[in-house]
């Protein structure tokens, strides 16, 4: 297990020894993490514990063991937990909507949950987030009439209500087309107040494009924490491209340029070394952990 240490002094959210089981499955196993202001990507396959970790950070679930500290506040204390929630924006993985609600009414509802009691202020916040995600024209549409991508954008919009300091997004890019992903990246990089943003994904190219920090979670454990280029560097000297498939390589697949890409210690015959991508590093780690 290879873990890079981040500068603890600037850390805003800290996690120590977090563990959580569901029946016999260990969803999280002794996770230690520090998150700073800016965007951190949480990378891992389905079932790796990303959703569990994010729901614990969002104060929705309780851990079995371990401690969480957000802005110096401990969610185990009732008053501090409410204070964390005041600064929180959360997009759960499968957000359900009251399907008969209109877009504006749903956002108004979430704004009330975020303790914005004044009607006019709520309307201003709703207008602001609708403009941020590009759904201004859809304020009166019923949610059941929206496409999947629009619903995802609505989910992101509700998380942005109240300008949170801690933004937790579980698979926010699922269902977005490439142009919408680009808008999403622009949106995240321009958020007021530079919040701590954590987003989870199982796609490495999202990480490479958006996140200055990345954490790799495999089977409930942290296998990497650092920058994307450092992640790519873990596969340095072990990424190859060749004209043919090689069975001895750890992993082998046909890339977009119609050549085979390999990851392994032993270069196949006729292969040339290529500079590794984030995805290569991730697959390397994943294979080493026995996940694939």
């Amino acid at each position: 297990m290879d873990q890079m240490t981040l500068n603890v002094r600037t850390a805003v959210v800290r996690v120590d020894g977090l563990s959580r089981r569901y029946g016999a499955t260990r969803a999280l196993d002794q996770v230690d993490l520090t998150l700073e202001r800016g965007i951190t990507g949480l990378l891992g396959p389905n079932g790796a514990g990303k959703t569990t970790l994010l729901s614990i950070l969002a104060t929705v679930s309780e851990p079995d063991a371990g401690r969480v500290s957000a802005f110096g506040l401990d969610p185990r204390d009732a008053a501090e937990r409410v204070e964390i929630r005041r600064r929180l924006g959360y997009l759960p993985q499968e957000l359900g909507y009251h399907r008969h609600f209109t877009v504006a009414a749903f956002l108004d509802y979430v704004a009330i949950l975020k303790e914005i009691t004044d009607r006019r202020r709520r309307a201003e916040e709703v207008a602001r987030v609708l403009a941020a995600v590009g759904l201004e024209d859809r304020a009166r549409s019923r949610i059941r009439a929206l496409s999947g991508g629009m619903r995802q954008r609505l989910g992101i919009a509700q998380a942005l209500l109240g300008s949170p300091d801690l933004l937790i997004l579980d698979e926010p890019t699922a269902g977005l087309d490439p142009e919408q992903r680009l808008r999403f990246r622009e949106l995240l990089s321009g958020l007021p107040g530079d919040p701590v943003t954590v987003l989870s994904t199982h796609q490495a190219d999202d990480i490479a494009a958006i996140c200055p920090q990345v954490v790799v979670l495999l089977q409930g454990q942290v296998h990497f924490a650092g920058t994307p280029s450092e992640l790519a560097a873990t596969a340095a000297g072990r990424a190859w491209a060749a004209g043919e498939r090689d069975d001895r390589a750890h992993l082998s697949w046909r890339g977009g340029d119609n050549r085979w890409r390999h990851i392994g210690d032993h270069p196949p015959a006729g292969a040339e070394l290529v500079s590794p991508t984030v995805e290569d590093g991730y697959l390397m780690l994943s294979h080493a952990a026995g996940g694939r």
Partner: protein
Amino acid sequence: MTNSSPGAAGPVAGADGHPGEDLLASYAAGAIDEVAAWSVEAHLTACGRCRSALSAHVDAERLAHNRSVLLVRAAIGDGGRLRRVLRRGGLPDHVLGLVAATPSLRRSWLLSVMGVLAVVAGEAAAVRYGWITAGSPGRIPGYPGQNLAPFLLVGPLLVLAGVAAAFLPMFDPACRLAAAAPFSGFVLLLARSVSALAAALVPVAAAAFLLPGPGWLPVALMLPSLTLCAFALAAATVLPPRAAAVMAAILWAVPALLLAVDDVPLLIVQRNAQFGCAAVLCACAVVLLARRDRFEWGWIR
């Protein structure tokens, strides 16, 4: 030519009868005297061309901002007549907004409740008027031939169902958002449950009034219905929520069915039983208040 010198109630029209651009700009900036402004305003009330010209002198960003907020407020709406009445009556608007999301307040739910009640009440009426012969369950001394057992079984259960739909996480599609939000989970649950309770008690009480039976029936059912719901909520602080609701339902249904089969006169309306219900209600209320923190964390698995 235009004359816009402040302090003079002078002519404000240009040669064509409309105020010129300078005058409009001064008016927009608040830089002309009152009487000249009144003249401009009188003209504006009648002249669309000058109104458009004036708009150019107003901060476009401010107009755009107000426009988008306006459209959002129009989209949100004011929630309908009932909500407006309640708001005038002093209830805070944001609590009303939260309650509006409760499934047991929707028209479809209430119509189903009324449908079930109609079936049950219809059956009791049929027995009363001799269209069908009843067995002897639900016999009340002094009211021969009444069959109230189905109604006694179903009425409080309908109220419980309404409250269950209000507080169970499985009925709230956005329950995870509510769990992660600072608004008190307990207050939310209570507001929804109380409104669902009120909404469910109205048709049940109305059906009890209309049923051919003793006049005290609606009143006698209030307390058991309340107790049942309080029990479900209190149990939810100890058990998983769905189990709590099911347990409450069983605790009512089984005795009601057994008593009906055993042909015991209506037990629940006797004074001892009512006092017993009141005692259980108080105990449940105490448990609920004491353990209300349970609804604030880790309630959603």
